[in-house]
């Protein structure tokens, strides 16, 4: 019997215009990658706030991938610049909190880069697999956001 290998839980935030399309292209091209990732489609990588990412880690994500249009290609002109800044900030924050910053990964993936998407997911999954399960946070209550009526 083989030892049961660790299957990490990975969350991917993909922007609608480039990276989500790149992920679709990976499918059209039948490029195979590990099935660990769960993808959340957002309009722009700039829609992903630090809160969302921290919440994912609180809910025991082993890794979080954020992918958007290449710098200069943003459908909304400059959303990905904000993403870049936020990711840098979060990386520092995670390190400060004693959390492995490698569990958060940012990648620019265009609509034509199906191969890059598959490679990114494959490499990121392996990296997280090597890191092992995320350290446990104390159970947190389900999030409450302010509801707009």
């Amino acid at each position, binding site marked *: 019997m083989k030892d049961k290998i660790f299957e990490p*839980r990975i*969350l991917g935030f993909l922007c*609608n*215009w*480039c990276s*989500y*399309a790149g*992920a*679709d*292209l*990976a*499918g*059209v091209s*039948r*490029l*195979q*990658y590990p*099935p660990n990732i*769960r*993808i*959340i*489609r*957002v*309009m*722009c990588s*700039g*829609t*992903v*706030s630090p*809160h*969302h990412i921290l*919440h*994912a880690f609180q*809910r*025991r*994500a082993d890794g979080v991938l954020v992918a958007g249009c*290449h710098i*200069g*290609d943003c*459908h*909304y*002109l*400059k*959303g990905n610049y*904000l993403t870049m800044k*936020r990711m840098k900030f979060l990386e520092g924050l995670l390190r400060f909190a004693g959390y492995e910053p490698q569990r958060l990964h940012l990648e620019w993936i*265009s*609509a*034509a*880069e*199906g*191969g*890059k998407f*598959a490679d990114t997911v494959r490499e990121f999954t392996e990296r997280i697999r090597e890191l092992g399960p995320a350290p446990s946070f104390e159970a947190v209550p*389900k*999030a409450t*956001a*302010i*509801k*707009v009526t």
Partner: protein
Amino acid sequence: MPKQIIGSVMVVGGGIAGVQAALDLAESNYLVHLVEKSEAIGGAMSALDKTFPTNDCSMCILSPKLVECGRHPNVHIHTLTDVLDASGEAGDFEVKLRCRARYVDMEKCIACGTCAEKCPKKVPDEYNRKLGMRKAIFVKYPQAVPLKYAIDRDHCIYFQKGKCRACEKFCPAKAIKFEDRDRDLTLSVGSIILAPGFEPFDPAVYDTYGYARHPNVVTSMEFERILSATGPYEGHLVRPSDRKEPARIAWLQCVGSRDIHHCDNGYCSGVCCMAAIKEAVIAKEHSKIDLDTAVFFMDMRTPGKDFEKYFNRAREEYGVRFIRSRVHTVVPDPGSENLAIQYVTEAGDITSEEYDLVVLSVGIEISPETSQLVQRLGIDLNEDGFTATSPFTPVTTSRPGIFVCGAFQGPKDIPLSVMEASAAASEAASLLAPVRGTLIEKPAEVNEVDLAEMAEPRVGVFVCHCGINIGSVVDVSAVKEYAATLPNVVHAEENLFTCSQDTQEKMKEIIREKRLNRVVVASCSPRTHEPLFQHTIRGAGLNKYLFDMANIRDQDSWVHQSEPAAATQKAKDLVRMAVAKIGLQQPLTELQLNITKSGLVIGGGIAGMEAALALAAQGYPVTLVERAEKLGGHARKLLAVWDGEHVAPYLDDLIGRLGAHPLITVRTGCQVKEVSGFVGNFHTVLEENGGRHQVDHGAAIIATGAEPYIPTEYLYGQSDRVYLNLDLDRAIHEHRQSIANARSAVFIQCVASRIPERPYCSRICCTHSVQNALCLKELNPDMEVYVLYRDIRTFGFKEYLYKEARAKGVIFIRYNLDRRPQVELTADGTIRVTVLDHVLQRPLALHADILTLAGALVVKDSQKLAKLFKVPVSADGFFLEAHMKLRPVDFATEGVFVAGLAHYPKATEECIAQAKAAAGRAGTVLARDSITAGGVVAVVNKPACVGCQACLNCCPFGAISYLEQEQKCEVNQALCKGCGTCAATCPSEAITLMGFSHLQLYAEIDEALTLQ
């Protein structure tokens, strides 16, 4: 005019120009027939890897436009279709078309690709320039629109040998139609726009370059495919002969351009210099080693917006080598498959370098097919086979009612093609203004189910097999069973094809029968199918936002083919996430805001006046504001356009037509003081003779022009023998004889252009100087005329002026920035110019009776107007458009457009095209009866807002304002584009992007990470 006018337009050619023209007209409420000869629209741009000068991924920026074209109810795409003939006249043409058989039923094909997988016949792939293979049944490229397969009859085994039919056997949708036949079609259209594009030059005739013989000599178009992630080598930079990564690549410029020896193309193709620089830069980025790149060129022509900076960066930051030499021969090394290039250096030495790969920068020409087509249509061509047009009517062909845009008008790059496409659309829209909106489909009114019904979510889940595409990997029945157990789900079912017409009807029935108020479809990608399903649920009375998709094909079954258990689990998770998200979704309302159907044009030069007339011709009232007391701007001083036609008669006619137009109000001596409002509803305060009054308008066009740089160098202002080109124009006109008496004349190019303080090329000065040099030679053939230049940038057909000037004895001497010409006043009051001769490498002293300075064009105080309209300006002071490639006249702020020199230095014909384009684009706003706001937009929850204004600064569209009194921020729904950046920036999560709320995102995260 004919008895009847028809409110539809045929656009010939589905490249970027044709697509832009089609979209503009469709948005302006005309019916468009977009005719494309190949299997899919997209044209040459779809095959490019990146685009200059922004290095945007070509497909990423093109694809949304193609999809929009494919979905637009006013655009009918006819693929595999040729135009046979057009009879009739402007306003009422009858067009005969031949639609070639596709052998695949477009209604049934689901583009799953099973047919191509099973097809045994491999064929060289034209899309990849035959560097790779496709099957005999194929889609042109993965992002093709329409995304439908086609059978290549010439290579299909069944058609050629009578046996096979593998595709038919395996097609899960029964879409193969071997009995399909070519059919003829007749259309009635009011106008025709020609955008058939170009053909890359075939360099096989350059015998000494060995293109046809050596695999490692490729064309620039082939190299684009090599670089592309969807190309034959999946974006790995390798050379064709042995798939090794090259360490040294050379580009040879002007292959099939500026050459009357190997071919008949005396013109400059205008795009190849920038394309080569871009390819060198991208190749360096791709390469894992320290790649050596060298571009062999004659003149480096980078006269477009931000092109010069791109060129500088390539040289200084990327280390691309630029070698000024026209290469004679490429010698293959039989042992290594490498290629030796022997060339003469600028110092006159013969040297040789070895390269792994040689790229020929091939020029642009018109295909024989296109020539035959336009001959059938009776259009006049110029000597090079492009459309014959006048600089004063740049998109008008010789046959009334037929317009032209893109590379078929003349060699040009993408932004100029897009600009002309909007200009051609504007011309067609003006012609057909009386019948606007008569042939378009009006969306049906639907009564939506009462909001109260939505309170308790009742979700229906439809899980799709997609034939075997999902079903062969994912256990669809298990996913359906699982979905039925989820909270709020009251109905779950599986379908062979959820997208088929009969399932759509069934879905509507089930929604009514089971009182569903939310729907989830687990199938393919929302990018392609969401609009279809939204349309269906809307038909059943549901708000279209009460819909979500789980992508269990493209992002699941197709990418985990050997892991059915994991793929099934993932499908369940994706369905659970979608169900949780949609349960939190409320109906989103879209509100309609009325618009003021009139325009404001700022600037009374050629661009402003042409824009005003074009907008008025579409039937909209226009106010034109000019700061000076007189109209005309700098054109008053301009003698002639590049082909020699005089400007003054055209200008008089233009001012006359402007004054006589009943819809145009001209206000001279008038300035813009205040601007408020937004697209469709601007309120602008004008100041005139000390008095103020307000103009309401729906769109604005900024055409405030530029100024000639007033030199402080080269004795300008200190001697009456020193001129600017515009001064010389006037002097030639007013003092003909004294100018003719001059014995010698010197032109100095790039005065204050292309220098570190002003790092842009002013684009028009080379042509203007060459033109004036010719003029002087004509006045006095014995006059000695010298042009001191850095690169001669007579792009396009203007190259013929340069050739003529050299033939007539004008002497061109090149100088470098570090050794600029010296100008001094001698004791006898004459001017002496000293310059280092680039051939002799010796200083030359030239006596100049006339010294002309080709000075830069500069923009002063554009900032003020920019602030008023909330639009940006570049570091050089020019107004900055929304996107340099595909939105050349739009601002990111909706409803505001730019034209003429205020955007960037450009020639008269380009100003006119851009002015018409701006009017065409403004027309797409004014044609609407109302603008739709709402839907997926950001909303501020005011009680939670602390008024920190972090959101205000991150919004690129100026959609957020701060309410001083309340100390809260507010989003203008009409301006918001729905990116959600503000929502993510708000520290108190007081902003929600509707449809992607924080609550929904948290729910999706929670469900994605729930352990099963």
